[in-house]
């Protein structure tokens, strides 16, 4: 390549990536773009999460994800841009330029990205990707197969509307699809959670007795594009690299050919051996999900957080942005004279069943606000505490299609639940247990 020749992409734009190999000559005095990354020091997860001093910055959720990746010793990141997460992977691309991420490229589309993440993880490297809404569902074929193949990786899902009519605002109905895949699913409330959950996700997912992918979900624009305070460790330290030989299944290399698939070839046939193998794989997966509890407890301080639940008139159970709205609702309820507790669920898979049964044993009223139409969290809560609590459960209020949830709607439900006055926001069929009149529900179901 002559000096005047400029490398261009197919659109004719000059390629200026700092990650391209250096041109000969004129290198002296030029700053090594990887210099800072090369100086990063490996620390233990324990030091990183519990001891390392942190400083507070006011950044967007996408920037928080970038900063988490900077400190996570990531080998491979694959991008496919989709609103509202495009900025996240773009920022991770900047990290690649700076040498913090070893390999990075843009996939053709999500099916290819998720398949490539599977390949990367199977080869033993630490992988990260992010997608949103329709991209999540497009990639779901690959994502749903990750846990069975025992592929540790972290995927950030910045939830947005997937059902028609389509919109680009947050709606977390896609989590309902993810929680049945067998992966660990964490739901971040804010920018700080995005930062913490991604970093902890690598450590938890790569534990020998877990060896599973981790999905970190947050509610699109509200978290990715808005700024919030994030307390972060120094950028000069990073997590230890992935140690693939500690995984529950062998990684691929020349001595270990695509072992698992070839070993279990009968899985492709319809016979009793295949059914057995399927059962074994799935049992392994869900047992591994169970075993991840202790690590979520250790590194994130619990599958849920509970505030003021003991003796409260009502308890709000929420995850993601609904938890943020609920904090305000608790404050407004206090001003109205209602004593309301808040349970924020961080881990949807594994689900904090035991914790909820204990916390809700004496609860009288539970309100579950959600940012989706179907109410997956209310179902989870009801299933978990059935038989362990006499609480009346109001499965709402819900907003969807990208709407912000007015805090006042949550307050209304608490008030109506406590006073017996029916609010106009939640259908009778969304109210379970306690003093619900089955005839009223039947009437509602007939008349909608």
């Amino acid at each position: 390549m002559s000096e005047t020749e400029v490398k261009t992409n197919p659109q004719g734009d000059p390629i200026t990536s700092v990650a391209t190999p250096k041109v000969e000559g004129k290198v002296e005095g030029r700053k090594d773009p990887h210099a800072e990354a090369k100086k990063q020091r490996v620390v233990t997860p324990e030091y990183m999460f519990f001891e390392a001093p942190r400083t507070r910055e006011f950044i967007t959720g996408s920037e928080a994800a970038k900063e988490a990746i900077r400190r996570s010793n990531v080998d491979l990141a694959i991008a496919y841009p989709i609103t509202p997460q495009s900025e996240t992977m773009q920022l991770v691309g900047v990290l690649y330029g700076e040498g913090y991420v070893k390999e990075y490229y843009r996939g053709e589309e999500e099916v290819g990205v998720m398949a490539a993440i599977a390949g990367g993880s199977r080869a033993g490297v630490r992988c990260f990707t992010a997608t949103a809404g329709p991209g999540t569902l497009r990639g779901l074929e690959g994502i749903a197969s990750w846990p069975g193949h025992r592929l540790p990786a972290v995927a950030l899902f910045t939830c947005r509307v997937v059902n028609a009519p389509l919109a680009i605002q947050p709606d977390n109905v896609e989590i309902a699809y993810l929680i049945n895949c067998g992966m660990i699913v964490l739901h971040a409330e804010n920018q700080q959670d995005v930062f913490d959950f991604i970093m902890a996700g690598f450590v938890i997912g790569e534990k020998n007795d877990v060896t599973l992918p981790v999905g970190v979900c947050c509610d699109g624009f509200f978290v990715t594009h808005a700024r919030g305070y994030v307390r972060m460790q120094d950028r000069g330290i990073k997590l230890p690299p992935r140690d693939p030989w500690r995984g529950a299944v062998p990684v691929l290399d020349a001595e270990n050919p695509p072992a698992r698939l070839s070993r279990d070839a009968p899985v492709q046939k319809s016979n009793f051996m295949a059914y057995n193998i399927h059962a074994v794989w799935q049992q392994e997966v869900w047992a591994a999900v169970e075993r991840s509890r202790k690590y979520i407890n250790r590194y994130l301080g619990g599958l849920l957080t509970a505030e003021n639940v003991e003796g409260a008139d009502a308890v709000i159970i929420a995850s993601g942005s609904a938890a943020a709205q609920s904090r305000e609702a608790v404050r407004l309820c206090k001003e109205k004279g209602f004593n309301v507790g808040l349970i924020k669920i961080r881990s949807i898979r594994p689900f904090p069943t035991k914790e909820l049964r204990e916390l809700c044993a004496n609860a009288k009223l539970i309100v579950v606000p959600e940012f989706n139409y179907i109410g997956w969290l209310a179902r989870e809560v009801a299933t978990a505490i059935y038989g362990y609590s006499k609480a009346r459960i109001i499965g709402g209020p819900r907003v969807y299609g990208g709407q912000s949830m007015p805090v006042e709607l949550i307050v209304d439900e608490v008030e109506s639940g406590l006073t017996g006055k029916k609010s106009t926001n939640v259908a009778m069929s969304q109210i379970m247990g306690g003093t619900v009149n089955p005839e009223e529900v039947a009437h509602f179901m007939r008349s909608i």
Partner: protein
Amino acid sequence: MARRFNIRMAGVGGQGVVTASHILSTAVINAGGESTIVPFYGSEKRMAPVESYVRVSDEPIYEIGEITFPHIIIIFHPQVITHGKSYTMPFYYGLKEDGIALINHDGPMKLQSDQARELEERRAKLYYIPATKISLEVSGMDLATNMALVGCIGAITGLTNMQALEQAVKDRFLGKGFVVSGGTAALDSVVERKFKKKQELIEKNVAVMRAAWNYAVDHGWAAKDVQRAEAPVAAAATA
């Protein structure tokens, strides 16, 4: 109890509604408070409806998203009311009981009878401020209308002060170059040319804010303990 105001700003494209929300938000934070903003991204064009939402408080704010039930609504342009240039119709939709509607208009407007009745039912306080007139009188341009409304609401909430507001204006025009959007950045340069130089622009904007702040105090709208703001001698000489 937290002093907390959820504010919905409604105006038309070109008035600087989103800029106003940024400046108010920054000014409250400058004064030691807490604030978040959510601009409503619709069609960005002159005279098209624009909304921006600001939460201000003296305690942490966790809530996110647009404001459906505001304590305060600010109407930047009478057309929001008369032409229905609002994403939330009618213009006072969701206004909380005993809420405040701060309207840029020279004297009380004649509202439709059902709207007037509904506002009365929720005991809304209607504050009419001739913000564009103040802007014209003080700065010689109507472009500081948004500053007048920010100054006025600053005094009404009592969560900021003139010094913090002035700093916020400086941050906006001299600071790190916060860009609301591509269109707004282009508009900024037009605004700057019209005001010849930035220093003059800042001084005039601040003077408009101060005049509106005092307007709020003089009309008894200001929060308890909020005083009139007197112009510094040096600034008064140049204004």
